[in-house]
């Protein structure tokens, strides 16, 4: 007990030095604990975001993969598309993958064009300039979808249904929903029939496929983008966007009445970690993943958690820096204090005190300061880390928003006519607040770190104590 008493007397006898040591430990422990809390808050937020956004895997053609596979061939009569039938993603395959136990929900779509027939007019308020060949763009843009309500423009309010109903998973393959301007130009209303031709351009020396397909108008919608007043290629005009079923879309892509050909398929996974299992199931279903890779589109997830993850990264670096710097600073302080206390150590050695007990006294003193500081840090860290984390996160969120505002819009494969479809969908709002929670585990962690620092900072320079000779200390200069 003697060394504890001596440690206590020393701490109270040199109150200024004790308070300085407690203060230093307090700063170290507070920063380390704040770092832990910010990291934990970020991890919780990321987990919540993951649960909220889910993990959506997308399957679509990779043209480079197709070329590398050597399966490209000349199109046959224009029916296989420019890259051949090997590049067709068939619905039958997708349906098999959808049956995988790891898939919570699946969706698919087509993306193409449709030529008007003699009795059907495109909406073109301003004709093309004289002499301009507009054949390649004089089409409706046709999106093959399973659920009109899930289409971005309808979700974000840029488009709304005026009459009739939308496309649903139960819709028949010959149903279509058209924009009100096209409906007006063609005197169409819900229940009428609209004839369209496949929007496939013929190869050199070939005739265009002029087969007509009859579609039943089941709904008329309104897009909020007004006419521009100048010439816009028909396919780029939002008024010329028509929505059909994937089967209807496949027909309009010139794929005939066989197995529906899709542009892409999306699979919402039950657990984001199931991606590998999904890929295995897809291969088992017959998919060539080199041609149709399955990738996770975690853009929204990243947008949500990006700033808070960067803040957590900064917090992690801070924890390490503070821990290392704290150990070094404390070790230097203890080393300097040992030098200052040489005489005291010599006196105790002359009385027969054992060197390990002298070291233990030092350790007790530093540990006592550390424990006090850990307690104080525990009391203050929640507020401090909320403030520090909030400030850091606000900066990161602001940077992320600026960056997003200046970044060119990436092509969106679910939207065949980007830019012609009104304003882009607002990006997911990044998580901008932190839920800092201080628990016993956090205190335990910072306690272990603080005591570890105390032990290292004491024992490293403390090895000098073991080399001390009382005679050298006490009679030096005599």
């Amino acid at each position, binding site marked *: 007990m003697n060394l504890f008493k001596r440690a206590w007397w020393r701490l109270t006898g040199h109150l200024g030095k004790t308070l300085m040591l407690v203060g230093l430990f307090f700063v170290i422990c507070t920063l380390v604990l704040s770092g832990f809390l910010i990291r934990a808050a970020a991890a919780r937020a990321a987990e919540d975001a993951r649960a909220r956004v889910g993990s959506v895997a997308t399957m679509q053609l990779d043209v480079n993969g197709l070329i590398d596979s050597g399966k490209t061939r000349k199109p046959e009569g224009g029916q296989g598309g420019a890259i051949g039938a090997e590049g067709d993603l068939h619905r039958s395959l997708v349906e098999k993958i959808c049956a995988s136990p790891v898939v919570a929900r699946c969706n698919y779509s087509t993306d193409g064009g449709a030529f008007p027939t003699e009795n059907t007019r495109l909406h073109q308020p301003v004709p093309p300039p004289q002499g301009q060949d507009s054949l390649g763009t004089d089409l409706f843009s046709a999106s093959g979808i399973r659920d009109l309500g899930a289409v971005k423009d309808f979700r974000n309010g840029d488009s709304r249904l005026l009459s009739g109903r939308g496309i649903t998973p139960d819709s028949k393959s010959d149903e279509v929903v058209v924009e009100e301007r096209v409906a007006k130009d063609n005197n169409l209303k819900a229940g009428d029939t609209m004839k369209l031709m496949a929007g496939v351009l013929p190869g050199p020396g070939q005739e265009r496929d002029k087969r007509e397909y009859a579609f039943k108008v089941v709904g008329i919608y309104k897009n909020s983008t007004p006419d521009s007043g100048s010439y816009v290629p028909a396919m780029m005009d939002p008024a010329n966007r028509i929505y059909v079923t994937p089967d209807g879309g496949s027909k309009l892509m010139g794929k005939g009445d066989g197995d529906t050909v899709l542009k892409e398929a999306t699979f919402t996974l039950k657990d984001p970690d199931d991606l590998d299992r999904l890929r295995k199931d897809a291969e088992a279903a017959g998919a060539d993943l080199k041609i149709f890779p399955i990738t996770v589109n975690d853009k929204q997830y990243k947008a949500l958690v990006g700033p808070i993850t960067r803040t957590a990264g900064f917090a992690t670096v801070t924890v390490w820096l503070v821990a290392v710097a704290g150990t070094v600073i404390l070790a230097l302080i203890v080393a300097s204090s040992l030098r200052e206390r040489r005489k005291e150590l010599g006196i105790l050695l002359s009385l*027969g005190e054992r060197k390990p007990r002298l070291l233990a006294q030092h350790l007790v003193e530093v540990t006592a300061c550390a424990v006090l500081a850990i307690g104080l840090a525990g009391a203050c860290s929640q507020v401090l880390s909320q403030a520090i984390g909030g400030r850091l996160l606000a900066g990161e969120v602001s940077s992320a928003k600026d960056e997003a505002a200046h970044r060119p819009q990436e092509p969106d494969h679910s939207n065949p006519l980007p830019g012609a479809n009104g304003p882009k969908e607002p990006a997911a709002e990044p998580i901008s607040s932190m839920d800092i929670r201080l628990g016993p585990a956090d205190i335990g962690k910072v306690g272990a770190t603080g005591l570890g620092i105390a032990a290292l900072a004491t024992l490293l320079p403390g090895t000098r104590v073991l080399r001390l000779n009382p005679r050298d200390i006490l*009679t030096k200069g005599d």
Partner: protein
Amino acid sequence: MTVPTLELTGLTRTYRSGTSRRTVLKGVDYRFEAGRMYAVVGPSGSGKTTLLSLASGLDAPTSGTVRFQGRDIAELGLGRYRNRHAATVFQSLNLLTYMTAVQNITSAMEITGVKGRRRRQRAVDLLTLLGVEPAEHHRRTLQLSGGQQQRVAIARALACEVDILFADEPTGSLDHTTAAGIIEVFRGLAHDDGKCVIVVTHSQEVADASDEVLHLKGGRLRTRG
């Protein structure tokens, strides 16, 4: 022939500094008995403090042995020897400044393993015996005068209940009356309690009060009873 309390045999101490060597003690032989008080005198630099350091186990000799009750203190362990059998009053006092007078003494008693619950009372008694006012007992030693600190240092050494008491100029900073009192305490410790008291001093009074006076000159010892 009885075993002496402390026996120095061929004690030599050489200090090295770079390539130079300086031999401070040159083959000192001596036997110290219990119940006697010894004074070690000699001019400055004659090796008095070195002799005290070696005999008290603060330092190890270059050659020769120090035996306590027939046993080489190097075998016994210098730390253990200091802890159980030898106490030293230093010229520079060497008190722990963050402790009070009483704490300095009780702390030393705990380190040296003095048993009993009444350590504190014993510390107070010793301080009173050595003329330290009760009001000073619980003041930090840094706040005491040089003379009072000297008395606290002596009280600390006495409190440890060891077999041999070493003192380096113990009366150097005391007035004549107090010094005389301290000399009496040392004599009583030797003659009444059977301890071996070895005092390094320049004081003629201390030398006169001692049972034996050892003259150290040029690292060699000669005695005068």
